[in-house]
């Protein structure tokens, strides 16, 4: 019997699709999608006078024509020391009087040789038990706020911009600031642990002794040299670096997570020269507005470029709760770095398009610029510059023999590696291909995305001055960039090419009624709302019961 039935079943099954196809199928219509709120290319809060070349406290500060330049008063204090500037200048900064003490011209060459640097540890986009959103916020791109830890020059007053705002004050940001010192100077770096976890500082590649003169550890490694610097405590490291170069400093406590959370920055030792007042901090890396004597001899400008990649899973742990015991467990027992997969890629603390506000390299024809490139992330960076073939002059801070200098258009940096590059705007088809807006980016293509959305990541540009418009906006001639300045674009809600796509070949497909219902239900499944509803129900039942009881009593 079975033999006879099987073909019948198969025939019926085959028939099914043809039945469903009997109704002529049509593709759904295209839905019109509207852009969200477009942020201006350059926020109005930026003080345009900060971009100009200026002299503050006798410190010459180079122009910085990008949208969001560094505060020049900070730079004056970073060159002279917070002990050598006026109260009026201090009031234009948020620095503590002891942030940076510069004294004692030991070698009598006209600059201070004993430098006391104080660093605090701050948390950005952390948890608040009072508000639903993160606190002390720092956006790497529109609407994107991963949690971070960073070193910051010791400041005074509030970490938030004001009581009315949860934005971080401008000294608190990523990356941890570049620190510059002069060769042979006596450097004392004091870690003031203002964070709720233990931390330390390790001077990577910087000439420093394993022990201080008093025998205390000086390498910042808990397993081998140093006790933990616990919350509320301070520890001073001492070094007199004999060798120059682009080096690194980072936390070495639970290094596999603390470094990636942001506790890493450049530590640059400048050549010892007479009257060499170096800019000790470079907030947010980027353009150095007061370069050292030696750099000025060879270059007209200098930029610090720090690359980092971010695994959202790690960075968002601080946004999941407040209890220090739960946090210690989630960071050190639950997070597994071997399963790491980064979603965000930042250059000097920002992703595209915010990189264009701060980290563009602005150049003139025939100018020679020094770029200190540092990969502070976990992934490799394959840096490619359009329109140029830069020349490597130093690897990991060590000067290359001139014969061994390498000129190419992709430089690869593994984690913690540094390359000093010479960017020469000589229009000869090799060094440079002429003026323009020349993008520079990681050629590991994940690096040019933000959570998989292109363009994002650490894309930036070398812009010739002739291509720079007002407020540091490059004279772009490609597609309309407004979508990149909306949260919706990176939330994947805005279709690709929508502004160029008049015929709507690539628009959003109209949702069915069912899909829409599903979406609204997803939105309403907020835990707080459900809790409120449960509370409402309980209260209602209680009210009814009390009412009934009372009315029963009064009836009796």
């Amino acid at each position, binding site marked *: 019997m079975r033999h006879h039935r099987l073909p019948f079943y198969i025939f019926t099954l085959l028939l099914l699709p043809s039945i469903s196809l009997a109704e002529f199928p049509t593709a759904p219509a295209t839905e019109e999608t509207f852009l969200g709120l477009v942020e201006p290319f350059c926020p109005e809060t930026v003080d345009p006078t900060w971009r100009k070349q200026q002299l503050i406290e006798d410190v010459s500060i180079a122009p910085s024509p990008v949208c969001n330049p560094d505060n020049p*008063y900070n730079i004056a204090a970073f060159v002279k020391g917070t002990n050598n500037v006026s109260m009026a200048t201090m009031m234009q900064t948020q620095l503590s009087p002891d942030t940076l003490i510069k004294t004692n011209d030991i070698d009598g060459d006209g600059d201070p040789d004993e430098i006391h640097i104080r660093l605090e540890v701050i948390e950005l986009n952390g948890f608040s038990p009072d*508000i639903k959103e993160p606190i002390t916020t720092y956006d790497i791109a529109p609407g994107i706020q991963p949690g971070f830890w960073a070193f910051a020059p010791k400041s*005074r007053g*509030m970490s938030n911009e004001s009581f009315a705002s949860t934005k*971080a004050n401008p000294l*608190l940001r990523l990356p941890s600031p570049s620190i510059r010192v002069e060769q042979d100077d006596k450097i004392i770096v004091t870690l003031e642990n203002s964070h709720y976890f233990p931390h330390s500082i390790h001077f990577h590649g910087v000439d420093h002794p394993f022990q201080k003169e008093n025998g205390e550890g000086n390498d910042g490694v808990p397993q081998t040299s140093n006790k933990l610097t616990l919350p509320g405590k301070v520890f001073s490291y001492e070094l007199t670096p004999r060798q120059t170069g682009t080096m690194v400093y980072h936390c070495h406590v639970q290094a596999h997570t603390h470094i990636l959370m942001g506790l890493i920055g450049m530590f640059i030792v400048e050549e010892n020269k007479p009257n060499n007042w170096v800019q000790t901090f470079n907030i947010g890396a980027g353009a150095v507005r007061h370069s050292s004597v030696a750099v000025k001899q060879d270059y007209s400008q200098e930029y610090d470029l720090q690359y980092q990649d971010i695994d959202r899973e790690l960075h968002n742990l601080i946004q999941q709760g*407040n209890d220090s015991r739960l946090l210690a467990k989630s960071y050190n027992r639950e997070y597994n770095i071997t399963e790491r997969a980064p979603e965000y890629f930042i250059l000097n603390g920002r992703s595209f398009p915010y990189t264009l506000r701060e980290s563009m390299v602005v150049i003139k024809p025939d100018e020679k610029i020094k770029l200190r490139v540092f990969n502070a992330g976990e992934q490799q960076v394959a840096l490619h510059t359009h329109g140029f073939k830069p020349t490597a002059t130093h690897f990991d801070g060590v000067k290359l023999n001139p014969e061994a200098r390498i000129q190419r258009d992709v430089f690869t940096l593994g984690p913690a590696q540094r390359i000093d590059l010479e960017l020469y705007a000589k229009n000869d088809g090799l060094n440079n291909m002429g003026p323009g807006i020349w993008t520079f980016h990681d050629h590991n293509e994940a690096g040019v995305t933000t959570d998989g959305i292109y363009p994002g990541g650490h894309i930036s540009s070398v812009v010739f001055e002739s291509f720079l418009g007002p407020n540091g906006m490059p004279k772009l001639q490609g597609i309309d960039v407004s979508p990149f300045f909306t949260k919706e674009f990176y939330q994947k809600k805005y279709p690709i090419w929508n502004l160029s796509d008049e015929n709507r070949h690539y628009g959003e497909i109209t949702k069915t009624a069912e899909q829409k219902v599903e979406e609204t239900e997803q939105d309403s499944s907020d835990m*707080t709302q459900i809790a409120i509803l449960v509370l409402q129900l309980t209260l209602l039942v209680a009210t009814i019961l009390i009412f009934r009881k009372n009315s029963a009593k009064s009836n009796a």
Partner: protein
Amino acid sequence: MHNKKLTKSISTGSLVALGISITSLYADVNAAADDAFETKELSQKQSQQQPDKKIMEGKCGEGRCGGNMQLDMKGMVMYENKDTLPKDCTEISEDITIEVKAGVEHAKPYPGTVFGFDKHQWQAKPCSRITVEFTNDDDIRHQWMIHGLPKYLYPEGMFHIEVNGKGKKTGTFIVPSSHFTYLVHCDIAQHVEKGMKAQLKVGNGRGDLPSIPGISAPKFADRFPKK
């Protein structure tokens, strides 16, 4: 799915009014109070056109300045006011002194916090003059910062003592006549969240602020592992 529909139908049903009243509990008490002060004080200031001469409103960069600030290596006292009465006070009702200690050791009684004050609540009469003796037992900075004061007297509505490492600083301010609960905290990133939060109740106060160690529950609580 079924539950979702159920809750939805309830919310759109007869409980809407009740829902509104409960949801309003979630509004930030502080922000609301501060706004109230701001609008009131601003309109007063505008009508006067003559701000109090004691207040210097200097041009500020990203730093906080204007008003009086005593800044030195040991810390700062900002917007101190020993003798200008708030407009709604005819005289100082009483002089009180608050002694506060700050540091990681004071967090120990409150599991899961790291930074702490030794006291988290103070009481004062309306129009009283309050002197704060703030002791820092840590080697880093800590602050005793109060918000919501009238902005015509205290720039940004705040009075602030910061002690730079181990030591003590003293400052004085005068509260207005309204019954109110003022937020006190340390505004260094994560210090308030990790325990440095307190309140000053003037008169009857206006309820408790959330997330104060030993006093009130957090609005957004931690999810602890179940046994």
